[in-house]
């Protein structure tokens, strides 16, 4: 199991695909809306992340005969979903500890 902090664009791409399979432009728009307009991915960054995620087997292409080559859809694999859940657990733990520390400091 791979346990490490993911970069923000990769995390947002995974979160976008966690909901449903999406193609490139849909991922771009979803990442923008997920981050409240703060993270605007370029196509170079997006496809760099997609390639690395494909290589690691965290996502896969949805193979459909009717899909044109320039509009292929991607979805999360079981391994990707498990790693995403672990990352969210890590973040949840971190925010919990951070909240406790801040509360202690204020008290």
């Amino acid at each position, binding site marked *: 199991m791979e346990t490490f902090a993911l970069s923000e664009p990769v995390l947002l791409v995974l979160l976008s695909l966690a909901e449903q399979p999406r193609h*490139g432009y849909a991922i771009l728009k979803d990442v923008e809306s997920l981050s409240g307009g703060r993270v605007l991915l370029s*196509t170079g960054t997006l496809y760099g992340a997609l390639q690395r995620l494909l290589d690691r087997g965290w996502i896969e292409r949805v193979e459909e005969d009717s899909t044109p080559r320039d509009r292929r859809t991607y979805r999360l694999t079981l391994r990707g979903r498990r790693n995403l859940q672990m990352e969210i657990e890590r973040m949840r733990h971190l925010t919990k500890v951070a909240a406790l520390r801040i509360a202690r400091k204020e008290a």
Partner: protein
Amino acid sequence: MALTVYCWLLCLYPGSCRHEFGEEMTSVFREARSALPPALAAKISFYRREFCGLLSGALRAHLDRLFGPVIPLRRFSMQRQVRFPRSTVFLMCVILAGLVLAIHKAQNVVQMKESLPPATATAWGPVLWGLLFALALILAAVAAAAAWGVLFALRRTGMHRLDGMQTWAEHHWRGPTKPGNSCFDRK
């Protein structure tokens, strides 16, 4: 025009990446461009982001292809005080580009020299030597710039302060450092 530049920049990617994602990337770029707001600032920001993203993506793809996945998915976790400043990274890229260009030029000069007939080669001799001398000067300048870049980066990281540290052997033979001499004693 922008699409032409985009396609031209896509050529910087390795062939396999271009073949796998090229069409998709162009299609997404076209779609994103058509959805741009009419404001000029938004357009400038979009094109800047796209072109910079392509350049960095191409560089990363080449590095991944040459050395495997050198930059993992995780965040850049090096401690801040030992990171290279951005100016040094930029300088190193410029130096690398200069070196690649110099090597390419040198290869051209050698090929030109080999392809010349003997009589012409004699006539071109001084010119070629001049070119080689100029090339050597350029290489020396590049090497000096590289050395300066490394020294600058080391200075920024605070490596020069290690001079003030005592090694275990020094400590053993000469006794402990007087307070104030070691960099750890500084407040």
